[in-house]
């Protein structure tokens, strides 16, 4: 099996298994249940374990335990289920443990709906858990990337000993596209001398905890973690740049809306409007430096999201208000068409000319 026709959710599951992930803990929720189904069918064939926990809270704490033992492990859910996991995520960060978490976003708040959304951007990038913490957040925008970024997620998680969140949406999870697994490189799990996996008296015991009795000790670990975040920002920021070089209007968009926006950019170019697209692939750390540079050459930015305007504020911060930053979005499970986005480009272009 090299090239297959596959759903986004299945692509994540298959890529996780190829990345050496042998433990999956989850709880069903639309629109990501295919992951658990795929894991349930496939994990026994590769000697792994797929376990449906009694709740999302239980599942993330099983991930916590498995990660502490040094194995590659993941969980997945959709928006309301991810909220439930946030306490466990904070503990995992507090222990500097690697794991992969997938959010196939649906409409919110509350139970919301089952149609696609990007309304968990704030939660993913600012506060999926209490404490001074960040996750490494990757935003795939095709089924191929659902697979390839899953592989990268495991690599980054192990490299920096931090949880990686894959922020997808219902459309990416459910839609089918060809995926070429031969084009993806999969890393082997590295040695983990810090893991609590039994020592038989042969070494000093490894203690994994997020509890520090002395304030100075806790401060020290938080400071060290902040150093790590700085390193991640230096080394791991990723984005796709499409026709930005000479662009007057640059759309900033991630995930499924970046696909829609790209069509709109092409339409604009056909009609003589210099439009471009900057697609952040890492949402945290955010490609701020790149946007700051683009603010010197572009005339306006347009953030297109499936929410009421969340990433748009990161675009404003990154561009230091040098140029106007507009927003266009749909929410509640509705999707904009590329024509809708093109109309926004036209409106901005008209305004600039006035």
């Amino acid at each position, binding site marked *: *099996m090299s*090239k*297959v*026709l*596959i*759903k986004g959710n*299945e692509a994540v599951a*298959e890529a996780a298994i190829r990345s050496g992930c042998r433990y999956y803990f989850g709880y069903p929720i*639309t*629109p990501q249940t*295919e992951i658990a189904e*795929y894991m349930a*069918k*496939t994990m026994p064939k590769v000697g792994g374990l797929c376990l449906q926990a009694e709740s999302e809270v239980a599942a993330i704490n099983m991930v916590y335990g498995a990660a502490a033992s040094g194995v590659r492990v993941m969980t997945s859910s959709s928006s309301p289920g991810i909220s439930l996991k946030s306490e466990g995520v904070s503990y995992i960060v507090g222990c500097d443990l690697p794991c992969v978490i997938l959010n196939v976003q649906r*409409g919110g708040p509350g139970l*919301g*709906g*089952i*149609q696609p959304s990007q309304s968990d951007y704030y939660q993913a990038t600012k506060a999926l858990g209490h404490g001074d913490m960040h996750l490494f957040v990757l935003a795939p925008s095709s089924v191929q990337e659902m697979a390839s970024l899953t592989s990268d997620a495991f690599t980054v998680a192990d490299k920096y000993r931090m949880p990686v969140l894959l922020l997808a949406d*219902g*459309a990416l999870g*459910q*839609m*089918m*596209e*060809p995926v070429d697994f031969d084009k993806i490189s999969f890393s082997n799990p590295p040695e983990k001398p810090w893991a609590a996996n039994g020592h038989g008296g042969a070494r000093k015991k490894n203690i994994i905890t997020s509890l520090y009795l002395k304030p100075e000790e806790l401060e020290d670990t938080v400071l060290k973690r902040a150093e790590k975040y700085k390193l991640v920002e230096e080394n791991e920021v990723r984005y796709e740049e499409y026709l930005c070089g000479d662009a007057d209007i640059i759309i900033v968009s991630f995930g*499924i809306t970046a*696909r*829609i926006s*790209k*069509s709109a950019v092409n339409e604009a170019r056909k009609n003589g409007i210099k439009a471009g697209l900057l697609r952040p692939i890492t949402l945290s750390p955010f490609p701020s430096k790149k946007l700051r540079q683009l603010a010197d050459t572009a005339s306006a930015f347009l953030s297109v999201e499936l929410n009421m305007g969340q990433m748009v504020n990161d675009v404003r911060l990154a561009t230091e208000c040098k140029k106007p930053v507009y927003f266009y979005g749909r929410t509640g*499970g509705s*999707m904009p*068409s*590329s024509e809708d986005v093109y109309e926004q480009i036209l409106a901005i272009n008209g305004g600039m000319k006035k």
Partner: protein
Amino acid sequence: MAEFDIRRILADITVVTGHFGAGKTNFSANLSSALSDLSHVYLIDYDNVNPYFRALDAKKALNGKDVTVIASEFANTNVDIPSVPPEIIGALNSVSSGDRVVIDVGGDMLGAVSLGYIHDKIAANAHGTVYVFNAYRPLTSTPEEALGVMREIESAGGFKTSYLVNNSNIGAATEKEDIEKTADFADKLSALSGVPLLCTCYMTESAPEISGNVLKIKNYTKRLF
């Protein structure tokens, strides 16, 4: 290789099953469109599994054809509860007055379970079951796996499979050769199951060069961008 006239499916009621993502919905829409040359057709969106991509999406594209699409009033909404549209009983009853029915069943055995509710109504009429498979789907990537899924569906839905339909493709990237490569797979599945291969579907410009029937189909699935 011969171009297949899908209207040769003689049954009044055709039940379309398969692994999820095999292309059941698109095949059902194509079949309904073709059968509407002969009589009025009810296309029943009987998918209680898939939240997003379903037969209801083909409604607009089937406009102008003598096809009535019946779907749960909750299809494509936020109601995440499997439900059966009451209109299907009327549709199944109308078979006696010359209408044809195509039932697009949800994926795998989980989707086929709901066939139990209308089993007797289907069994009382001339009916056939088509098992659609795609050799490029990871969980049915060997004839043995595809047979396993087929047997699970048969036992959950209560119907033996009458025909196989080879719908192997890798989406828009499909080349004619990709389909041709699956001919052996199809023959082996047919031999293993004892079920005849009805046809091999294609959307490519020219037909795959294989022995047996080929069927040119249209794309009725929802496009997001």
